[in-house]
């Protein structure tokens, strides 16, 4: 994506949404999933992803599980109960934002 600032504010919502759809995920898996879903348009860097994951963990939205996989340890993240509720709010906020932006950028597409 040419301007990564456009998605920065939505990174936590993207993470929460992915974790809502998958039981648990690890950092690299999240970056690859986003890349796959956006056909390479959106690339989440390590420097942006991990601080966001740690912030969500500190806020009590994510829980961590460490498992040994392929000769190394892997940190899996999953939504907490509070995280599941917050995902609904965040997604709703993001949808409202997208709607507002569409109204601003392309008002003809908005029928109502």
């Amino acid at each position, binding site marked *: 994506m040419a301007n990564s600032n456009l998605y920065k504010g939505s990174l936590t919502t993207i993470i929460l949404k992915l974790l809502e759809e998958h039981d648990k995920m690890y950092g690299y*898996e999240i970056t690859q999933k986003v890349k796959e879903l956006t056909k390479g348009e959106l690339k989440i860097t*390590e420097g942006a992803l*991990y*601080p966001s994951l*740690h912030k969500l963990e*500190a806020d009590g939205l994510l829980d961590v599980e460490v498992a040994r*996989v392929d000769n190394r*340890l892997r940190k899996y993240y999953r939504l907490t109960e509070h995280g599941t509720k917050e995902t609904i709010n965040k997604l709703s906020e993001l949808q409202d934002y997208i709607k507002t932006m569409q109204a601003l950028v392309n008002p003809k597409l908005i029928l109502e």
Partner: protein
Amino acid sequence: MRKLSKEDIQFIDTYLKNSEVVFTDIRIEMVDHVASEIEFLMNSGDARGFYYVFKDYMVKNKANLLKHNRQYYKNSDKKIIKSMFKNAFSVKGIVIFITVFLSLNFLNKVLSQSLFIQIMRALPFIIFLLFAGMYRFIGRNKKERFSSIERIAIYFMLIGQILNLYFQRAILRKTVILEQSVQLIIITSSLIFVLIVLMQVFFKFKREYQLKYKNVS
């Protein structure tokens, strides 16, 4: 499907450790990320050996990867402060504060003024030294260092400074004490209480890390 060997993983771990990624909880994640990406590249047609792929990856991504290492303290602070508030305002926390306050109040009534002052002067420092010693010798493991546990040291230092400021320069001037012993008891109880809460948070984090990172050899 090519997978990295134990030696390759150890190489990445040592490299990151030498690049000042000293905390185990942060490094585990970075090692896995780097290893996953290298495996992906090797399985996507890069026929070179591990070392060459790793070297190229690090040249391109090291700065971005280490940026994440420097941001740990913000989240650690958030976790520590949140846990301290949670403990302080829990039923257990309130009971602890009341117990400390009533105990000091009791001492004020039964002891002579000079002995009470001596105890008030010494008690917070003794508790501080005891807790700081416990933290230093039980909590900090040179082999495996964890970000939030190490960050607690900053709070011990901060409380140490407050203790020094209050008790050496302001509160324990005899004239103030004689006139305002209730105020002194409240301040002393609060300081002792904060130390107890900090220790509770320390033990909570230690338990959590032990549970979550039990696989760390």
